């Protein structure tokens, strides 16, 4: 496997974004958050907008994402990232503003802020990592937890009669005229990663056109919370999560796809 003849600058085809700091990612092994974080850095680097972008960090496993990507960041209170982003974009309309949020953050405590920012059509990008659970706090039920799925606060499985069914917040905001591009992606395979990256590129580029919210849901694993190995978690995700949260574009150019 000695391959010093290949390891030359001119042969380099992939290395991590220069916007990534040296700090090791705090995520668990195999967690999709890592890939999403890196993709954001790559997209910002490729667009060359690192000096004009402000990220809004959530409270969730990505709470310290500001330590990983070397751009300006604001850590929002749990659930309030879109309210924070609204203000930042309004006072700095020529900057790129995005939020990075989990499903508890965006679809439980932050529901009102999410819906109203989308309804107002704020010119922001919302990156929504849906892992069907509260990862950071140790695996409690999220609004997006699947029926029958076990978490630490529904140890016998989510009972939709008591706790309601998983909520599809992405479809709910897609019907609002304030959203312009709404898509659901994943990062568990190379192909999925490439698609997600394209979606992110598009989402950031759209901010220049002032057309409203670009919203990227990324269905992801929380292998720790799900109590599975990363590989098993991704498999389970494909089988179970994608049924309830099917991947693909939902709204493009301001128009719902059917």
């Amino acid at each position: 496997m000695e391959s010093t003849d290949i390891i030359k600058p001119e042969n380099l085809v992939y290395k991590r974004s220069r916007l990534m700091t040296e700090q090791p990612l705090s995520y668990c092994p195999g967690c999709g958050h890592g890939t999403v974080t890196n993709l954001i850095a790559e997209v910002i680097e490729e667009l060359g907008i690192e000096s004009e972008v402000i990220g809004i960090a959530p409270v969730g496993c990505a709470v310290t994402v500001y330590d990983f990507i070397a751009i300006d960041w604001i850590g929002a209170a749990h659930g309030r990232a879109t309210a924070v982003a609204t203000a930042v974009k309004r006072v700095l309309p020529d900057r790129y503003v995005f939020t990075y949020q989990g499903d508890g953050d965006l679809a439980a405590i932050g529901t009102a802020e999410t819906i109203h920012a989308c309804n107002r059509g704020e010119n922001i990008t919302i990156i929504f990592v849906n892992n069907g659970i509260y990862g950071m706090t140790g695996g409690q039920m999220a609004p997006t937890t699947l029926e029958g799925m076990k978490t630490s606060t529904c140890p016998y499985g989510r009972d939709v009669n008591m706790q309601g069914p998983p909520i599809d917040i992405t479809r709910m905001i897609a019907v609002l005229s304030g959203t312009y591009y709404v898509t659901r992606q994943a990062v568990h395979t190379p192909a999925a990663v490439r698609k997600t990256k394209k979606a992110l590129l598009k989402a950031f580029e759209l901010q220049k056109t002032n057309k409203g919210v670009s919203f990227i849901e990324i269905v992801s694993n929380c292998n720790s919370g799900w109590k599975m190995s990363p590989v098993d978690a991704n498999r389970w995700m494909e089988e179970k999560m994608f049924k309830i949260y099917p991947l693909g574009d939902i709204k493009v150019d301001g128009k719902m796809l059917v």
Partner: protein
Amino acid sequence: MGEIQLMKGNEAIAEAAIRAGCDAYFGYPITPQSEILEYLAAANPEKRTGMIVLQAESELAAINMVYGAAAAGKKVMTTSSSPGISLMQEGLSYMAGAQLPGVIVNVVRGGPGLGTIQPSQSDYFQSTKGGGHGDYRLLVLAPASVQEMSDHVKLAFDLAFKYRNPVLILTDGLIGQMMEKVELFDPVPRSKTLPDWAACGKKGRPHNIITSLHLDAYEHEKMNQKLKEKYALMQKNEVRYETYYCEDADYLIVAYGASARISQKTVTLARNRGIKLGLLRPITLFPFPSEAIARLAAQLNGILSVEMSHGQMVEDVLLATRQYPALRVEHFGRFGGVVHTPEEILEAFIKLFIQLN
């Protein structure tokens, strides 16, 4: 001389924000302060100065918008009244923790709960001791006239940026709703530069992070130590108060805001009856003018803390006069939306201090 107007206190706040070079306002309607948002909406400051005015979906959203605009380095304000301010407590704690400037106005009404929309001063503890979680302090200004409603907005922005700390203007429905003469200060242009700590795009510098999180407790303690020192500095440098007939006073009323202007009349009534009553009006509630009160304490026979509440500020008066255990400190105040008259303050004072002596 500035422009003279007859204005509501609430309107004065709104106009002063525009003139002070405020960059953005986020708020949600609630009586008795909705005129602020209404005035701003009508004044069209977006055209006048480029100032953003946005009605938020709730006070919770509003305070987090304030947090965002402040984090971006902008001059930002929100206003509400008691229940709405309670909803902002998490956000205020976050602002203090992340060391963000910003101006918050509480036009207090009677609580607790939905209470009444009539004026009150029962949010003193919440404002001065921290209604949110954690060790933090807001710098608290207490205007007593429509003139000060205007002036304090400018002062509040200056102090907020000086200390990178949220500043609360604590007023009430009485001063918010009343009209009187106000001399407006000349407009200050909006700032063209952003502070170096702001998260506004990292052009030409390492990236900035605005956060109140420190996973490591020792790190977080260091941050808290910094905050503690900042609050001590405020206590050293920013105490503001006004005295009225204090030089020869045997008795003192301590009162702020609406209660202070009412008590001023009480002082006159008392003096007319030969009672040497004075008034000390704290203009900053945090930092509290403890030393000024302590300095007067030696000459006094008694202090009456007059507040439209069960008696909250009176604790700070008691703390200020600890070296004078024999000095009687009492509270008088109507509450729950009822405003005391100068006469009933005098009656209460006489009953508490004169008849018993």
